[in-house]
């Protein structure tokens, strides 16, 4: 039995527990992402130390160059000896020292690059894993409120933006910080006065960058909003291609796309103009630091407090600093931009699901279901979806639910395996003889294994037919697989596929029609051998013949094998309603009438209207 849901609910992955720690919870969302490094202190420390060594050695190296030049300046590097020949001793010493330092530094730099990459990827791995776990953990209510589009955008686009920021963390934040510190340290070493102005100017420059960043992000947001409509036209242009061709709309779609691209380029140009005209200012401010070093340095050289070699080394250190800062505008922008994305991901990771499993086990044998005064509120303002809704289905009974579009039939179905919990009232499984058990007290995985909802949209994964069907029961034998396919009238689909059940379906493989997908989804539900099978319009794309065959097949199997299957069928065709032992009419959020098809046809106006049998009643 799979107790994953419980295990994750009880103990979220360590990354998430860090993100939820009180000290982290209220921090800047990007810092919260970075807090995941707490779960791998050693890796973080080793990467940081390596970076520190690399940058410290760069400083060391620059100072060595300064000393070497100073030796040249003093005429000590190469000395003309008395006999007129040249002594290269000191010069060779410097060659050995400089090259040796550089080699050692290169090795550390290489290792640091790999280690920091691996560490950064490990952080992303944990973040991505946490996101997936959270997606799988959150209940249908959350998914419905946020919609597939938004969930996909959050888990991919937002996650990519955060990735961009986190990836640049090592190279751009840690290393830039170290370079600035190291460069200022060199200046300080030569003369503290040299470092004063560069330190202030660098701080001022960064402050200006930060101020610009917010406006840049606003402009960028406008650009990406404009791009969204480009994207949408693009997706529609590909997804709606049959209609486009059928109506000869190619030219008008192209014109529309061109217009959307035009709007996007206008916004992009505007953002570009702003950034290219403003960003040079802080860059120049930081660069003035070198002018200060140059001016003060010349003065110090003249007064003998600094030698020429040291001046050159100081200027080189400033060069390094200026070029490091040059790209910082872009980095600050990436970070500012990722802030909102990180906040959205944190919202997702912070979300809690009210649906946690209980500890009780399900009784063996057939199960019935019971709704008692159930209320489900609508996501927004609107009226309740279900209100004081009560229904009982005894073990082995077949009940059809009928109701107008939007009357809450699917919501009702989702309550049974606890894809959704009611806002008020209770959902029970069990039987009148053996007692009713509140589903909230049951182990979640066990409940879902016994109560199976086959939904109308019949989602299949891009995987083989066999693996899609076996989702319902991974340990099933081939014989059971074939039996399930037969029951769902899906053998002919498989026979016509190039590699039978091993054929990959979906995006990457063969495409199936809606009816074919529904039959495979039914096979997936049937192979699980549930005690309660809920068909939520899950035969809607099948012709009446096939639908009836499947329904009868399932019922007959249940009867002949002596393990009754309780069925709740969301029905819209009279034939389906007739198949059921009993029909329940859902209207205004509750069951307003119950009875057999014949009874309801006589007694219920609502039912007659829903089934389109005005004439028959007359």
């Amino acid at each position, binding site marked *: 039995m799979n107790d994953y849901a419980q295990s994750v609910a009880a103990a979220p992955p360590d990354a998430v527990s860090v993100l939820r720690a009180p000290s982290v919870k209220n921090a800047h969302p990007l810092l919260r992402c970075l807090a995941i490094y707490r779960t791998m202190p050693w890796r973080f420390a080793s990467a940081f130390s390596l970076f520190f060594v690399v940058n410290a050695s760069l400083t060391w190296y620059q100072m060595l160059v300064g000393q070497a030049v100073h030796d040249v300046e003093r005429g000590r590097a190469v000395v003309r000896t008395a006999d007129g020949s040249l002594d290269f001793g000191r010069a060779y010493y410097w060659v050995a020292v400089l090259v040796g330092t550089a080699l050692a530094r290169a090795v550390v730099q290489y290792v640091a690059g790999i280690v920091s990459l691996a560490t950064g990827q490990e952080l992303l791995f944990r973040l991505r894993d946490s996101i997936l776990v959270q997606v799988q953990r959150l209940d249908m209510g959350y998914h419905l409120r946020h919609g597939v589009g938004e969930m996909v955008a959050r888990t*991919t686009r937002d996650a990519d933006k955060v990735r961009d920021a986190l990836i640049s963390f090592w190279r751009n934040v840690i290393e830039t910080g170290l370079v600035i510190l190291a460069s200022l340290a060199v200046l300080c070493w030569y003369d503290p006065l040299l470092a004063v102005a560069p330190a202030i100017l660098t701080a001022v420059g960064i402050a200006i960058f930060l101020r610009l960043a917010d406006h840049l992000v606003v402009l960028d947001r406008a650009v990406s909003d404009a791009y969204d409509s480009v994207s949408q036209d693009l997706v529609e242009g590909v997804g709606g291609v049959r209609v486009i*061709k059928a109506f000869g709309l190619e030219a008008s779609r192209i014109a529309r796309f061109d217009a959307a691209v035009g709007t996007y380029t206008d916004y992009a140009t505007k953002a570009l103009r702003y950034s290219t005209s403003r960003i040079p200012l802080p860059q120049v401010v930081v660069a003035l630091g070198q002018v200060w070093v140059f001016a003060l340095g010349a003065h110090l050289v003249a007064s003998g407090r600094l030698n020429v070699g040291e001046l050159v080394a100081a200027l080189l250190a400033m060069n390094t600093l200026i070029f490091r800062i040059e790209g910082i505008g872009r980095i600050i922008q990436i970070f500012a931009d990722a802030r909102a994305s990180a906040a959205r991901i944190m919202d997702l990771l912070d979300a809690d699901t009210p649906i946690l499993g209980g500890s009780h086990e399900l009784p063996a044998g057939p199960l019935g279901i019971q709704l008692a005064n159930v209320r489900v509120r609508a996501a927004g303002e609107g009226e309740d979806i279900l209100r004081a809704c009560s229904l009982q289905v005894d073990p082995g009974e077949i009940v059809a639910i009928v109701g107008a579009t939007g009357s809450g039939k699917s919501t009702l179905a989702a309550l049974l395996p606890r894809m959704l919990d009611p806002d008020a009232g209770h959902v029970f499984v069990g039987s009148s003889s053996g007692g009713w058990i509140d589903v909230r007290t049951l182990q979640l995985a066990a409940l879902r294994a016994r109560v199976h909802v086959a939904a109308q949209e019949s989602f299949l994964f891009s995987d083989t037919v066999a693996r899609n069907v076996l989702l319902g029961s991974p340990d099933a034998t081939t014989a059971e697989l074939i039996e399930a396919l037969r029951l769902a009238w899906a053998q002919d689909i498989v026979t016509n596929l190039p590699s039978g059940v091993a054929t990959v379906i979906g995006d990457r493989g063969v495409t199936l029609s809606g009816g074919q997908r529904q039959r495979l989804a039914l096979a997936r539900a049937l192979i699980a051998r549930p005690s309660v099978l809920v068909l939520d319009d899950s035969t809607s794309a099948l012709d009446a*013949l096939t639908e009836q065959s499947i329904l009868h097949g399932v019922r007959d199997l249940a009867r002949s094998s002596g393990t009754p299957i309780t069925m709740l069928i969301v029905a819209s065709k009279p034939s389906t309603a007739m198949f059921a032992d009993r029909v329940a009419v859902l209207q205004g959020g509750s069951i307003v009438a119950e009875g057999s098809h014949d009874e309801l046809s006589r007694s219920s106006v609502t039912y007659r209207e829903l089934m389109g049998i005005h004439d028959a009643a007359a």
Partner: protein
Amino acid sequence: MPRLEPAGHKKEALARDNEPSDLQVEQQLALVDLERRMFSRLVPLLGPVRAQIAAVVGIECILVITVFLRPWFVRQVIDRGFVPGASGRSVDGPFVAWMIGGLALCWALRFALAGVSQYVAGRAAIVVLNDLRRAVFAHVQTLSIRYFDRTKLGRIVSRADRDVDTLEPLLIQGPPELLSAILRCGVSGVLLFSISPPLFWSVAGLVPLLVPALVLFNRLASRNWGPVAERRSRFTSHLVETVNGVKVLQQTGREEQNRRRYKELLNDFTATLIRGNVRTSWFPPLTGVLSTAGMAALIVVGGRGVALGQVTLGQLAASLFYVFLFLAPLQELGDLFERYAAGTAVAQRIFLLLDTRPEIEDVADAVDPPSVRGSVEFDGVTFAYAPDRGPVIRDFTLRVAPGERVAIVGPTGHGKSTLVQLLTRFYEPQVGAVRLDGVDIRNLTQRGLRRHVGVVLQDNVLFSGTILENLRLSAPHASDDELIEGARSLRVDDILRRLPNGYHTQVGPLGASLSHGQRQLVCLVRAYLSDPAVLVLDEATSAIDVQTERRIQHALRRLCAGRTAIVIAHRLATIRDADRIAVMHNGTLAELGTHEELLARRGSYAKIHEAYIRGQASARPEPTVEVA
């Protein structure tokens, strides 16, 4: 995508890697090889922005000058700024002030010009890339349906989306940066040479070491790019599928397996990425070592020059900067090459798409008949979607007279919908012909054919915009009133008016904001407005509440009146309305006749009908396979 194999099935995991990658599938469809010279194809894209590129090149040249001015100022101050005096040296104030001012101006100019250059180059990028984006989209619109059926939507979209953006560093920033690198390298070489030829040679001696390293690096880097991108798209599509299929995963309790698979994909991605970096990231440290070697050579050679009095101290200091300026561009080349590798890989994919010819093209003398009577004929048609898959239509013959209404019935998956694809020429049959008014539709223009053959498809796709805008798609010149009149004729006017903003309601992407039934109604009106001689209707099977259903039935009847109609029927009412009924089985025509005739034959139609009519326990039908 969750692969759910028991743990430890490594063989299977390996076998999966041998599945054709998405790129290979696209390559098959393009029928041309990916490997081709990219350069000759990329350059013409820059045509429209010649002037901007020239401007950027000009600015880069000025920038290079400012780069060389900076060490020159340093050298001047060291050599001439200090006046030896009694108490050591003193500063030549005015001269040094000039030099300091010069340096400040130099930096200001440097960053201001860089801003201008970025603007001009960025603007050029926007122009070029979006022209390319438009071209890709326009080309996609010409491709045949098979391309869309075989290629993931996401991959086609990303060609005009992310892929185009990836070209920016290659096309726009690449050339000026390359030029700047060459200029800096060249000028500093010349300056070093002018200070002292031995200084130059000592540094230039490093180039023979750097170049092969660069070539090797480039080769390794370009090899990494594809596998990493492929693995990234694998784990991303797994995630997207998880979001889409989360209900199924929760229902079946397969979360843990799914997570395990995701972690495998992530680990595979990370491992590939790191492996690639282990192979390539030796390059930056190596260049660091080489520039140090240059520096060391300078100390030796320069020290000798100073000792011999051939080189001044200022010259030596300046040449230290020149060594950086000489070697740094060579390092940047590595980055440029890496971008070139990434860019060309993407450019290949874009050109692959642009090179993909539509499978179905109008023949040279294709006709566009102004009007047709509407007789349709399938003559001995056999069709398979792919050679390795069995035919879905086998020797199918059916003649439909002008104005006749034929219902096609039969079990799901027996080729009914494929007939629509053939009649609209989304696909072409391998054997036999489809004729309109006796003319093989392959001899008609596609546009002409589709103007006379209207279709209402199962998926009922609408485009984002209002309902009126969607209706106008099929009648571009109609006034609002004429469009609404169309809806009124089908008696669906009141339903559409009841939507939140009536006819001005936004339907959402691909019509997602409307219900199935509403979407279907709009599609029927849309088809009605285009007024085709032949109507092909793949009746939606999805359940709709009975009221809407009745409106649809009525609209359908009105829509079919006065034209040839071929209806893939799922509803008894639709079937009964037809003049003749064709029963399909396994891609063949099993029965054909009027409702009464077929009932009298007591064949497969009679059984289907019986199931429809009674739809209850006593009418348990035979398995489909035995129906024929």
